[in-house]
């Protein structure tokens, strides 16, 4: 087993990883930027090494300085968390070249699955359903029009690299397809350095449902059930829950089997998430993309399955066989996570970094808070605005929602604005309670009413 792990991340996920390392008796080294000197992760870790100034490019994305810190601290492995370098296959390769284990999949499978176009082809080869559309990036407007005519309008144009909604366009006819394609290509080129776009059928009433998988280096891959992340704002997840309240047991089983099939086809190991779009009208699911890292919302799966995913990430990275088999996975009850951000939800969710003057987190049966915040902590403006994940677990969805409402009302964060009031409204909305939400509902309906 590893003796010492470096955590190449910050915020709540850094503290989360430290917790699991402690459970395993592994020493922790965190790297940090100058603005994170007072962070909880720096306080909790056994060793903390400053790797650069505030801007992520010079610190949390600075591969040289992170590797230098890893060698200085003589660590056995690096956990990349999520975001930053977690899906950078070059980083993974550099780490392994230095004889340090990267806690994640191989660079090869990251490359195979991290690119949307390549991943879709791989899914098709493996027999996993994908959204009908172009077989790969469209090379011309003519090709795009041909595809659109075959699958029928409306269609979606999507950058193969990318995420967070950038490089995406909807087209309802040939004209908007041609112009949309050019715009999406330009946007993707600027944002990701890669303008390649695909064209596919548009799912009108969609739920975002993803399958958590974990695999070891001995060919075992297990699916840990789904998370339904359909409540999104501008393609950013706001609420995640498990089980999904809209799919049947049969669909769940098929999605899990497909997720495992795809992972095995890519020779994937460690934790990963296979994202699907679920078409509420056709009652069918299509492979969307794979996230080759631990995700923000992983605690939802931890709460229903009882497995500590970070712990098992570390164990399989150390070469151990998976500690459980598919038939051992028996999700129980219902878990919901809300992301609490330092944002003013009434002002377009604009970030509100600053000093937290008072902080009292909720507690109680079925309540879990993953956070790096404390009273006296100043949230730096340099990084994302997520300050806490509030996760509840009840026997039923109704019970989980009751726990959530109570926990939100007890949460005291003073000194900055947070999205707690937004979540309080959201979870009281009858359409949310009745599962009538689609991935566009918050943007197109809820936010217009508020």
């Amino acid at each position, binding site marked *: 087993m590893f003796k010492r792990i470096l955590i190449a991340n910050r915020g709540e996920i850094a503290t989360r990883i430290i917790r699991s390392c402690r459970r395993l008796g592994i020493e922790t080294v965190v790297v940090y930027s100058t603005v994170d*000197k*007072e962070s909880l992760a720096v306080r909790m870790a056994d060793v903390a090494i*400053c790797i*650069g*100034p505030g801007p992520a490019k010079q610190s949390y994305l600075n591969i*040289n300085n992170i590797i*230098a810190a890893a060698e200085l601290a003589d660590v056995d492995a690096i956990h990349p968390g999520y975001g930053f370098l977690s899906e950078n296959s070059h980083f993974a390769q550099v780490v392994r070249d230095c004889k340090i284990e990267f806690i994640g999949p191989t660079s090869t499978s990251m490359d195979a699955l991290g690119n949307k176009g390549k991943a879709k082809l791989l899914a098709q080869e493996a027999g996993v359903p994908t959204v009908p559309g172009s077989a790969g990036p469209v090379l011309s407007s003519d090709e795009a029009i041909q595809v659109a005519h075959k699958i029928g309008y409306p269609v979606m144009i999507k950058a193969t690299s990318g995420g967070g909604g950038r490089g995406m366009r909807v087209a309802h006819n040939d004209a908007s397809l041609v112009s949309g394609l050019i715009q999406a290509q330009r946007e993707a080129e600027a944002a990701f350095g890669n303008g390649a776009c695909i064209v596919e059928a548009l799912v009108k009433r969609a739920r975002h449902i993803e399958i958590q998988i974990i695999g070891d280096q001995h060919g075992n891959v297990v699916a840990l059930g789904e998370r339904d992340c359909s409540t999104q704002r501008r393609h950013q997840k706001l609420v995640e829950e498990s089980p999904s309240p809209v799919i049947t047991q049969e669909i769940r089983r098929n999605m899990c089997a497909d997720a495992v099939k795809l992972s095995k086809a890519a020779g994937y190991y460690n934790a990963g998430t296979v994202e699907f779009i679920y078409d509420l009208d056709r009652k069918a699911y299509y492979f969307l993309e794979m996230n080759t890292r631990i995700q923000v919302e992983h605690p939802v799966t931890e709460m229903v399955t009882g497995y500590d995913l970070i712990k098992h990430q570390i164990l399989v990275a150390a070469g151990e066989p998976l500690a459980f088999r598919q038939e051992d996975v028996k999700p129980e009850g219902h878990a919901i996570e809300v992301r609490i951000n330092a944002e003013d939800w009434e002002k377009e969710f604009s970030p509100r970094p600053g000093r937290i003057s008072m902080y009292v987190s909720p507690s109680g049966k079925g309540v879990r808070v993953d956070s790096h915040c404390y009273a006296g902590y100043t949230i730096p403006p340099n990084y994302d605005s997520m300050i806490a994940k509030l996760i509840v677990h009840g026997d039923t969805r109704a019970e989980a929602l009751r726990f959530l409402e109570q926990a939100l009302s007890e949460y005291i964060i003073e000194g900055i604005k947070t999205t707690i009031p937004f979540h309080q409204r959201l979870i009281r909305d009858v359409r949310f309670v009745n599962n009538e939400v689609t991935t566009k509902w918050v943007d197109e309906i809820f936010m217009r009413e508020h």
Partner: protein
Amino acid sequence: MDIKTLRELTKLMRDNDLVEVEVESPDLKVKLKKATSPVAAVAHLAASQVLVPAASVAAAVPAPVVDEFAGCKPVISPIPGTVYLKPNPDAANFVSISTPVDENKVVCLIEAMKVFNEIKPDGGVKGTIKKICVNDGQAVEYGTVLFLVG
């Protein structure tokens, strides 16, 4: 006393991220204290002194900077690694107190990832070495103050 002096003092506090200022002169004694978190580094200084930027100081120098080095500028480590003050074990140090330095002068090596990086004061820092803040072979992180130049 005049309120203007006080205003200037508070500006100084803001700009330099100070939490406490005490000034005593024959005709005036002032103490200003900011709301603070328990962890913050606190710098006490006498009036008329120029400060090393708080962040770099906080990152590396445990003791408060005192006036003999007022006005000095720091040379900081750009990378975590191991400092070497001499090119090889038998050689003399790259610099010692009073050595003149500028952006072309190698002041030390920092070994990181098996590479010996030559460290030179960056553009703005020139003058003579006033203080050597690290020992040969010491591990440093980003921002560790290596030398004070004045």
